[in-house]
């Protein structure tokens, strides 16, 4: 092999790895806070990407309507939950979040789709739509199950994945789509050519990691999330509403997912079901990071990206086999390094 191919493969791997890193971070975040292994993370990616691509090509994305529908059900559930103790302010707040907000976004989306919205507006709208879906998803599916075991949460998570993937097919059809690039500029360094898009991927990934780090280190909400992740009961005792923590975690995860989707849809064609496999690779990074460590997850994601790039070059048939079995030696090392500690399942 020559060094050009080597460099090219590494570059390709890092671009993909950066996306996996973002997704891995989101998975770690959601798991730590809510104990949900977020299989629908992949759907956030495809929803974000395809909503953006649809808007950019002047089509009406069905996701905006889905957000309105989910918001309405969430509001109905809130009303039902408040039937004994009626607080006007709480209801008003729920009405704004669950009914008013998605309706405004829907109106904007209809307008934007009719007028071939400029790219920044399309990006912002896609992010908001997917963020709302993430938020309502927590309210509808996971908040009522918050007290159950990881296994039940996981199965519910798979249920959400199935439903959302099916809806994806309904909204976007079976054909793949590509979106317009965010930045057209390109940069040449030696044999390598950096497109504006791949630079945007690097930049946004780094910015996000720094932003998350600042959020968790400096803000009160960030600290509340960390507290919930360490000990849910303890967090509740000091007045942190674990529901709020769960909502924030899902909100962040859906925004991260949508953003990843928007970043890659100009590079590769995305189908309604592509997100699952992309999400899984983020997942592998998250597992290598032990579902707790953010920096380790980011590094592992880069590794996964690079391994994938190399194996698709040398043994493209076995690409997925190699990527997924990569995990086993890692897990083995982990379990040898840290002998099983006492873990009790709490009820």
């Amino acid at each position: 092999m020559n060094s050009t191919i080597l460099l090219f493969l590494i570059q390709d791997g890092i671009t993909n790895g950066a996306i996996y890193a973002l997704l891995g971070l989101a998975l770690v975040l959601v798991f730590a806070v809510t104990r949900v292994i977020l299989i629908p993370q992949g759907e956030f990616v495809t929803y974000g990407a395809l909503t953006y691509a649809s808007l950019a090509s002047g089509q009406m994305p069905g996701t905006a309507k889905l957000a309105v529908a989910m918001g309405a059900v969430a509001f109905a559930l809130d009303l039902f939950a408040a039937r004994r103790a009626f607080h006007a302010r709480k209801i008003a707040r729920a009405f704004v979040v669950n009914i008013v907000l998605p309706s405004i976004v829907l109106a904007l989306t209809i307008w934007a789709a009719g007028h071939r919205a400029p790219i920044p507006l399309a990006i912002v709208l896609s992010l908001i739509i997917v963020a709302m879906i993430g938020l309502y998803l927590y309210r509808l599916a996971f908040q009522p199950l918050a007290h159950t075991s990881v296994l039940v949460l996981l199965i519910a998570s798979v249920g959400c994945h199935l439903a959302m993937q099916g809806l994806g097919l309904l909204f976007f059809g079976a054909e793949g789509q590509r979106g317009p690039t965010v930045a057209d500029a390109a940069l040449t360094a030696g044999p390598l050519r950096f497109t504006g898009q791949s630079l945007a991927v690097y930049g946004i990934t780094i910015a996000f990691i720094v932003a998350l780090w600042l959020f968790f280190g400096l803000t009160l909400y960030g600290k509340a999330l960390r507290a919930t992740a360490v000990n849910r009961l303890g967090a509740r005792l000091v007045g942190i509403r674990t529901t709020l923590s769960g909502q924030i975690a899902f909100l962040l995860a859906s925004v991260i997912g949508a953003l990843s989707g928007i970043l890659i849809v100009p590079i590769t064609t995305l189908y309604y079901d592509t997100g699952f496999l992309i999400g899984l690779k983020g997942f592998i990074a998250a597992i290598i990071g032990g579902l707790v460590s953010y920096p380790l997850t980011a590094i592992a994601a880069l590794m996964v990206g690079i391994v994938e790039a190399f194996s698709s070059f040398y043994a493209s048939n076995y690409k997925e086999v190699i990527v997924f079995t990569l995990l086993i030696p890692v897990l083995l090392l982990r379990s040898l390094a840290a002998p099983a500690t006492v873990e009790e399942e709490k009820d």
Partner: protein
Amino acid sequence: MRERWPVFLFAVVMAVIPFIPGMPPFWIVLLDNIGLSALVAMGLVLLTGVGGLTSFGQAAFCGFGAYTTAVLTTAYGVSPWLALPASLVVSGVAAVLLGLVTVRLSGHYLPLGTIAWGLGLFYLFSKLEFLGRNDGISAIPPLSIGSLKMIDPGTIYYAIWIAVLVSALLTMNLLDSRTGRAIRALRRGHVAAEAFGVQTPRTKLLVFIYAAVLAGLSGWLYAHFQRAANPTPFGALAGIEYLFVAVVGGAGYVWGGVLGAAIVVVLKEVLQSYLPMLLHGEGQLETIVFGILLVILLQFAPAGVWPWLVSRLPFKPARKQSDTSIALPPRERPTGTPNVLLEIDKARKQFGGVIAVNDVSFDVQAREIVALIGPNGAGKSTTFNLITGVLRVTGGSLAVLGKKIHNAAPQEIVRLGVSRTFQHVKLVPDMTVLENVAIGAHQRGAAGALSSMFRFDRADEAKLLAEAARQIERVGLADQIDQTAGSLSLGQQRIVEIARALCADPMLLLLDEPAAGLRHLEKQRLAALLRQLRDGGMSVLLVEHDMGFVMDLADRVVVLDFGTKIAEGTPEAIKTNPEVIKAYLGAVT
């Protein structure tokens, strides 16, 4: 076998179904699919619901079973019946290899690890030349007995459901045995189980193999039912689907697996055939509705449908009384018992920079009650953990009956005659008091998994249960023997732990705060029991905060403070020892 009559009733009903006139053949196909799915789910019940080891990879084991028979019967012309053992062995061997890697993983690594190799194997199945890549292998011969070829769904129906029923019976037998109790204890962490001699890694591997072999059996049947094998039904999504079959039905119950299979298969069928007609929709409408229904179902019955149904039954299954006259042989006690039972010499335990136990030395003599006291954080429970092998010493040595126990495993310590209770109660809350206590006698039984499945363990099992019942009576909980441990008060649970420890037939009993949570009269009864045990030849080492209880009961008291022994002596001497008073009440300045 009297308690198994509902199973036989079910078997009769299933046998009659194909003969019902006007039975649509399509329903029989559905029942075939339910049976295939139930087999895998049953393995998952044991693995995940009972053993607490979540696996997404079961579909891959079906794949091993199906591909093994597919290759053997098509490429080598082997009879399907001869291929059956090969299918089971291949699945089992794959489980051993994957299990050795995966079962060691604790907590959430385990399910994630299974996803990883589940996906890896799926891609491998679809890439290997001799497995026909994505097209798979077709023209697999049907099962046949003599001239009867099981081609139509109505005949293979019997092969499938006989497999389901036999597996269900074997699984129920296994769960209701010495090995079964060890499996059921896995989910609550391994410390308590290991303290009574359960080899937890081996037990985990056992259930892993068991589940894989059931999946392999399902794969073998599938291959001869479909007469073809391709990678799709053995992929990650199928693996996940088996898991929800188990969870929906009730992951903790053998029949939950069967019920879950019925619910999921029928639900999918109904959605697939009626939804498009109703809504004229296109695409995967049924997937959407299926996903949503799954989430709603879980919100209503998080423990699964089977336990929800059983709790609505008008009658409760009765347990047959155990015969307390059969006895286990008592432990061989050394003749001319040496006076020193336990000797701790400069035991030391450091956690990083913290010295939890600092060169502590003391001993426990035969027929003696020694109390280990000290303020919170003095290192008492750590000392217990050092003695019982839960923690390794950093320095110093411990000896039982003059024999050095150099960082022996907990399973070996209990074999030497030292058994214990825990400061934080470690019982299996959904097992009865009797079953919990019987775990204490684990190392005194010998029946293995195979003999339990075929019920050759009944003599051994009766002895274990009789011993457990006797110890429960001894500690005064005979009335609660059939209640679940989780339903007792905390004080009673501590007493159950004592009964469990006694079941190991110990020479030295270690009790960690046995009187906490007991009422006055219960404490008096406990003290009387401990005195009676001592007079019967047992020694007791206890940690306790109730000074009245300790000073009344103990022959000797050892006081720890910040990991260091500060005093040792008779209760009278300790009560007036200035060092001890200082440690408890602070220095008088």
